[in-house]
Structures are given as C-alpha cells and as structure tokens.
C-alpha cells in the first residue's frame, strides 16, 4: 500500500477536491432520499399507521381517503356485514392551526377517529393518546416552532381550542401537520367551518375483521356486496394514495442521474490520474509489482475518497436537517446513509474500471525501452 499512500500524501489537493466533490454529490443524494422518504410518508403515512387493517372508502374517490365520504346508510351496511367485528368512523378534513397568541396560521390535516376502536393512531412518539374531547395528538415532524405536548392550539375556522397531549411519528397526511382527535371533537371542528351541517360523515370506515376472518376474504366479500364502496387494506390505502407513485418515480429518476454523475466524476478523476502516473506505474511494475498491487492501491484510494465523501455528505445532511425542518421535516436515518453508501460504492467501482484496465494493460517492458532508461 506504499504506492497508494504515497499518492494520497503527494496529491492532497486533488484528492481533497475529489473527496469534497464526492461529498457534495453524496449530500445531494442523501438529501433527495430523505426528502423522498419524508414526502412518501407524509402523503398517507397517517392511514398506514392506524389500527384498522381494513378501510372502506367511496369507490369514486379512487382510493383517496381525503376525497372519500361514506353516507350513514352505507356505514351501517358495512358495520353489519358478516366478518366485521367492529367498524368505526375515520374522518379527514383540512383546517388551519395557530397559537392562541399568534395570527400566523398553518394548514393542517385533521383526522377524527373513535378512541380505542379501529382507526386509532398507532405511532405515538411522546405523551399519550386523547382521552377526552378537545384533546389531540399531532405529528412530531411538524412540531418545531408550532406546538409541543401540553400546548393549546387554536383551530380555524371556528377558533376551537385543542390541547396537544401527544406527538405521533410517521403519521402525517397530505404532507402537512396532522392532528388526530376524537370523533366528537372532529365533528365540532367541521361544524366550526360549516355551522349548518347536521351530519358529519366519515371519510372511511375503519374495520376490525372478526376473529378467524382473513382481511383478503373480508375485502372480497365487502367489495362484492357494496359496489359503491371499495374495501382496501391499510397498506393499499397508503401505496395507492394519489400521486405517491408519481413522486417516487420522479425522485428516483433524478437520484439515478445523481449516481451516474458520481460514477463519471470518480471515473474521470482516477483515469486522468492514472494517465498522468502511467510512467511511474510502468516503472513500479517493471520493478516487480504485480498488476493486482497497483489495482488494489487504486481501490484503496477510491475507498478513502468515498468514505470521506460519505462522511462529508452525512455531516451536511445533519446540518440541513435543522436548517429545513421548519419547511419540510427530514430525518437523518443511518439506514438511509447505508442504503446510499452501497450504490455510491458500486458506481465508484464502476467508475474505476477504465483506469484499472489501463493499469493492467501497462507493459513493464515499456519502462526499459524508454530513451531515458537507455532504450531507443
């Protein structure tokens, strides 16, 4: 490894720049991945992290929970269907939240559910679930600068006061601050907007299947019996949420381009370095070093660059997390860093294929035939 280490010491500036460049590219990839995770979770995470394995929506809503409503007669039909152990309301609406002493409002998704029944949020990070009216749990990802456990917040229109008794995680809806509140409070909130409303309908029916009844069989039976409604698993309600796939593909495309840039930048650097060092490499080989020795030196240098780049990129992501949290909450997840490191390593290795081939093609004889070595 003497040769590789000597190269690293002698060309600190070049390797330093490459490491910084790689670090920035890795940061872009990590940031986009964190953003994508936040967006995908934020679209319908709330639906995926509630206690009902089966949800029944209006068929016309095309699996959009927020766009669905279930009239009372259909609700009763679902609740009375064979295989349904319990059925309760899940309502979704959009309102604004603000601090009592502030005029600044933030758009929020509000979900109404029946406590301790299907549809109860399952990802509590802090505090407790609501136990009485006018209590709420709110998304922890959006808490910074807006609310914390114990705070009172106002819901507009209507200026209804709610007490935040807990914070949820991975339970957002519509990529916005998300509040869960008992159904009676939800009704009050909706009536704050529409005072004439006599009847607040559920957006979905949250179902617990009877013991021994599989979700698949229940879904099949419900869909056959109630053509105006559509029963789905909670996982399907998340993955089929409108726009989710489109966002994912768009981001993956951009990230794919980012990986290609990493491969080209690293490959170009090492190829240029190899070309410049070709006489030295030839000499080293003429002295008896095997091709594998030089190649392993290249790989070592690559590892130094990539590990350095990953470190820089991760540190930048940590800094970015606090910088953007008020706008869009992202999380530094070590698993994501590992998941990014692997393809970065792979594309880096692909990038040095060309210089490796060049090294292996080096003819030690060329060292002897050089005029400066006495050749002709």
């Amino acid at each position, binding site marked *: 490894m003497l040769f590789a280490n000597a190269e690293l010491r002698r060309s600190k500036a*070049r390797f330093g720049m490459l490491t910084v*460049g790689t670090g*920035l*590219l890795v940061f872009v990839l990590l*940031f986009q991945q964190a953003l994508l995770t936040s967006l995908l979770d934020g679209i319908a995470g709330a639906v995926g992290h509630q206690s009902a394995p089966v949800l029944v929506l209006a068929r*016309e*809503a095309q699996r959009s*929970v*927020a*766009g*669905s*409503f279930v*009239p*009372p*007669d259909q*609700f*009763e039909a679902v609740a009375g269907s064979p295989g349904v152990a319990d059925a*309760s309301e899940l*309502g*979704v609406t*959009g309102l*604004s939240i603000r601090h009592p002493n502030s005029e600044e*409002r933030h758009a929020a998704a509000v979900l*109404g559910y029946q406590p301790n029944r299907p549809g109860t949020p399952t990802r509590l990070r802090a505090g407790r679930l609501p136990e009485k009216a006018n209590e709420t749990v709110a998304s922890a990802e959006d808490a910074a600068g807006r609310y914390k456990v114990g705070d009172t917040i106002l819901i*507009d*229109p*209507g*200026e209804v006061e709610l007490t935040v008794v807990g914070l949820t995680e991975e339970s957002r809806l519509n*990529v*916005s601050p998300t509040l869960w509140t008992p*159904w*009676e409070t939800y009704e009050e909130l909706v*009536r704050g*907007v*529409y005072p*004439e*409303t*006599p*009847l*607040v*309908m559920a*957006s979905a029916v949250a179902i617990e299947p009877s013991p021994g009844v599989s979700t698949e069989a229940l879904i099949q039976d419900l869909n056959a019996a109630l053509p105006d409604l559509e029963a789905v698993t909670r996982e399907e309600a998340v993955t089929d949420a*409108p*726009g*989710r796939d*489109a966002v994912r*593909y768009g981001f993956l*495309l*951009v990230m794919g*381009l980012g990986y290609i*840039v990493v491969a*080209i*930048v690293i490959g*170009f*650097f090492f190829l*240029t370095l190899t070309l*410049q060092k070709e006489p030295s490499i030839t000499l080293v080989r003429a002295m008896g070093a095997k091709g594998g020795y030089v190649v392993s030196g290249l790989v070592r240098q690559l590892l130094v660059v990539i590990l350095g780049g990953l470190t820089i990129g991760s540190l930048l992501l940590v800094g970015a997390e606090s910088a*953007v949290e008020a*706008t*869009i909450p992202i999380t530094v997840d070590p698993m994501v860093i590992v998941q990014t490191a692997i393809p970065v390593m792979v594309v880096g290795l692909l990038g040095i294929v060309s210089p490796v081939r060049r090294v292996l093609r080096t003819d030690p004889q060329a060292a002897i035939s050089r005029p400066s070595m006495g050749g002709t």
Partner: protein
Amino acid sequence: MILTRELRRNPRPFLVPTGVLTLLAVLLLYPSAVLDGILHGSTGVLRTAPADLIVYARNANGVLILSRLGSEERSQVQDVEGVDRVAAFDAWLLGAASEDAEGTAAVALLSSEAQLGSAAPEPGEALVDTTLREQIDVAEGDTLLIGPGEVPVTVTGFVSELNLWLLPGVIVDKDTWSSALLPAGSDQSGESSSGEVPQDLPDEMPEDLQEQLGDQPGTSDGSSEGEEEPGSEGSEGSEDGTDTGSGASGDEGSESEEPGSEESGESQESATGVVGFAGQEPSSGGAVQEPGSGGAPAVPVDDDEDQDMSQLLFVDVDDGADPTAVAAAIDQATGRVTETFTRSGAVKAMPGVEEQETTFGYIRMVTLTVALVVVGLFLMFLTLERTPFYAVLKAVGASSRQLFFGVVAQALLITAIAVGVGAAATWGLTHIPFELPTMMQPVRLLETLVALGVTTVAGSVLSLRRVTGIDPADAIG
C-alpha cells in the same frame, strides 16, 4: 480564438466534462420542470383570474375551500375607495363523466361573476379546461354529467390555464354550480337559485332521514351526544320536525326538502346540501392541494340569513389606484375579517406552494454548489493535461491573461452546449408518463444557463494559478 478552435479540432478531452455538465443541467432543469408543472396545474385559475385582487376570509388561511364571505363583507369591499368592481367566485371538487364515453374524472367546478375564458356560460352550459381531454373523451357539444346528482351540462368550448388543484376546471354559472353540489336525488329543476331551497318543502323530516339521523355516525353506540344546535341528531326520532336547519344526507333516497329547524325559527330555507366529493384528491406528494372536503357536508351555499355567500371575491381596482394600498384598505374596512391578496400573493398563500418552492430552491442551490466543485475539478485536470500546449502558446507570445480568458471561453462554450443538450434530455424526460405534471419554461432554461455559466467561470478560477504560472521554457525543454 485559438482555444475555442481547440474545441472543434480536438473535442475528445472535453467530452467528459461536457457530459457531466449535461447531467448537472438535467439535475437542475428536471426538478424545476416538476415544480413548475405542479404549480401551474394547481393555480391556473388564480394566476389568470380577471382581477387585480383576490379576497379570502381571513380564517381560511389562504385555503380557498375553507373561505366563506357573505353579503356584508361584499358590500364593505365594494365601498372601499379604489375598488371598481367586485365579483364572486366559487370552486369545488366534483366528479365528472361524459354522457357518451367511458370513464370519470375529478374536476374543479368553477363559477365566477367575472368572466373566465372566452365567454360566460349560460345555465346548463360549461366551458372546460383543455386538460380534461387528457382524461376523458369529451368534445364541444358533448354533455358532461357533474357531481353526485349527475347534473348535465353541455360543453360549449375549451379554455386553457383554468385548472385548479391539478384538476381541469369546468366553468358554469352559479345556478348550475349550486345544483351540481346537491346530492343525488335532489331537485335539479333549476328553480333553486344560489342554493335556495324550493318553497314547497314538507314541514316534517322524512321518516327515512329521521331514522338515519337517529343512527348517524359519531354516535355509533346508538346514542345521541345530546347536541342541541341546529342539525343535532334526532336520536329520539324527532317528531316535531325539529333538529335540522339544513341539509340531509347523501342518501340516494333523500330529497332536499330540508326540514326546518325549530331552534332557528326558520323553516325550509336553509339549503346546505350534503355533498360528497366524488373525485380524486389533487395529486399530493407535496403538490399544492386544498384540504379534502371528505367527511363533511361542505357546500358553501347560502345559509339561512345570507343569500349572497361566496368563497372568494375578485376585485378590480380603479385605474391608477395602487392594488397593495387598496388591499390593505379592504382588510381594514372589513375589520380584518378578510385577507386580500394580489394574484401572485394568492398563489403563494395556497398551502404547499411556499414549501415546495423553498425545497426545490434548496435542491438547486446544492446542485449548483456541486457543479462548481465538479467543474473546477475537471477544468483543473484539463489544464494539467494541456500544460505543454499552454507553454507553447506562452512561448510564442500569448499572455497569461489571454490564456486565462481562453480557458474561460472554453468553459462557457462547454456550458452552453451542455445546457442545450440537457434541455433536450429534460424535454424527453418530461414526456415519460410518470403522471407527474411537468412544464418546461424558457425562464428556467435561462436561469440554468446563467447559473451554470457563473459556476463554470468560478470553477475556471481554480485553474487560474496553474495557467498563469506556466513557464514558457517548459515548451523548449
């Protein structure tokens, strides 16, 4: 210039940096195309509104679907100095189907006293945004069935840039708009105007509706919560026709003969219909969206006392008046019940707009920083490789300044080529059917060209020291 001629004579060394710059250009242009596509598809009506100012209810926080303004606010706005004309605007999300073709689509049903598009539609007519044709087969003269009650409207023409919430806009007159929001089975005769209930309603609630309200959700243990407000569940099976001052359920069998509310002392005149949103939520994932109306009878039609409610007011100001000053005066005149925006302000106030622009801004900033470092690296290496060539040029009399500007010129030329190719590649990507709205705008291309050009020049500075330090004697040696 000799160095730019070098690009033509021997382009090989420049292919890789050009390729990388092209990829970086795509990394800048494609997310911008996505952002612009989402914003344009979500805000068309507001961006092109025939108004200088748009007035919301303040407690709606810029959310159109939550805003409600009555006749009192309207007259207050009308009386403000500098206001020329006030027009009501309403919008809702509904499903639409072509009478003759398969498939349904979610649409934004619009109604405006100020003319949107080429002509104001008559009752039973509709102007439709061109993007609806991408979803269902519809042509001029066709009939669309709108809303849960399948109100028929004849398509009289197509317009562009009248979408909202990523949905195609369908523009109708106010009567048709109100009718379309009524539940299936309601009276669609068109006699009802602005949501007013026909006068020949029964005094008592229909039995089936009474039963439903007795078993309604929210009291799924069967008991009433004992609410006494109008519309309170008649869990006892109200026998005196009380309880509801307004609309019924979305039940097919129910009629819109809303019974009176004894509490309010009114009867049969409130007309809040229960409406189901039967369409698709605007594409989310950070897309601009209005919070869903699901779960609530959410029609902002006229209530018992105010026959002139609307969601927004479009305001034209007098010639020569300052719109910003008039906006402030409007909000003051209404006691800050309203929040008045310019058109661009209204777009920015829509939930998600600012967050998306900020997020994409971060991505652009970081990508440009990456470009700076990467370009600097490449130019440095290119300079290293061509040191002997520069030495020869210096030996024959070229100054360091000339060499440096030559390097900069090469960098700018490479950038221009890269942005051109990148734009073409981005255009291709926007045509991949991801169902993600995209729109390429010339201003973004210019922004990217300038930004990458600046970063390239800045990157060139990194090789400045080496270029200027070349010893012409090296050429001889």
